[in-house]
């Protein structure tokens, strides 16, 4: 595929679904510098993946798949955070974040709860909240639908429980 064609497709994907990338970045990276790094890594992987997209799934499903795979790989990189090293030369200012006053505290609360889940459950939670079906989640994560069902029940009760605690307090 020619670079300009790839750029065009990538531009369309980003314009239509950049929210997916923001959600994954916000759920897996917690510091400003880490978010910049993860966002850059994800966008590069999405850009590289344009050639491999055959249209078997929808673009949002594809982008979620690439973004989650990259985020999970990113969190597991050996000694990355301890060494303070980054695999890419991070372009500062690539990702801008709204100030805390501008953010909806309920959304922030949701991210805080998601951050407490295990890495894989976090992926399932993001997909669930974005309205993906059990079948789609199973295909993205590579689990059986019944297994996804078990995870979703656990996630739903955890979130509902926390919400009740929050309301009570």
């Amino acid at each position, binding site marked *: 595929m020619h670079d300009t064609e790839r750029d065009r497709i990538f531009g369309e994907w980003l314009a239509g679904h950049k929210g997916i990338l923001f959600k994954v970045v916000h759920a897996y990276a917690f510091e400003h510098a880490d978010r910049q790094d993860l966002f*850059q890594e994800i*966008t590069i992987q999405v850009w590289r993946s344009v050639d491999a997209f*055959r249209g078997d799934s929808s673009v949002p499903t594809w982008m979620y*798949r690439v973004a989650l795979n990259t985020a999970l790989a990113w969190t597991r990189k050996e000694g990355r955070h301890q060494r303070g090293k980054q695999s890419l030369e991070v372009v500062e200012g690539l990702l801008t974040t*709204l100030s805390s006053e501008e953010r909806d505290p309920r959304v922030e609360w949701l991210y805080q709860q998601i951050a407490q889940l295990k890495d894989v459950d976090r992926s399932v939670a993001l997909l669930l909240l*974005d309205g993906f079906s059990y079948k789609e989640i199973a295909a993205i*994560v590579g689990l059986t639908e019944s297994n996804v069902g078990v995870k979703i029940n656990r996630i739903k009760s955890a*979130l509902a429980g926390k*919400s009740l605690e929050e309301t009570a307090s």
Partner: protein
Amino acid sequence: MNFDELMAVWKSQDAAPLHDVNQTLLHQALRQDEARLQKERRTEKWVVYLFGAGVVAAMALCLTQLIHFHRLASERHGAVTGWDYAMGIAGAAAALLAWGVVYVGHRAQARREQCFGESLRDQINRRITQLDDATTGGRRRTLLLLVLVGAIFPTAILYFFARINGKTLSDVSFLPFAMIIWCLLLGAWTLRRSVQRAISRKRRLEELLKELDGQ
């Protein structure tokens, strides 16, 4: 809040995302990555080409030494023995085999190019298989390369230098052998470290797989 309300809250960020992206910088980051990737590929290609040229030169050197020695064979040098032929052929074969090992490794690396479109589980399993290969087949290939390039080929060259000068291999000073041994040890140590890293990464991926299965 029930779950439907939580979903509604979650979806509210589609209208007002928590982040925004600087398109100019993004374009710059992508170009930067593309340039880095192209540079890596060019370097890899040149390493393989140069290694190939080195192999041809090494084979030629071994065979020239053998032919040269054959011509020089005299009372001083002694008759050409089976060992002379064996060392010449072994040196050339070691260089050729080393080229084969590098070529196979290069092809295996090319096959490992990251691809998308499969589930997270498939990606993890594929990576574990690659790490398995790095700790078994890959390790064997590197060890073979070490022995071929680090030991057999230089020993063959040393042997011919000694024979041409009317000496035997045992007359050669200890220094070149010490250097060969040092190179072999350094190579073995580097290989051990890379295998250890691969094993620890594999363990982490296996943990992730367990987490995926809810264990």
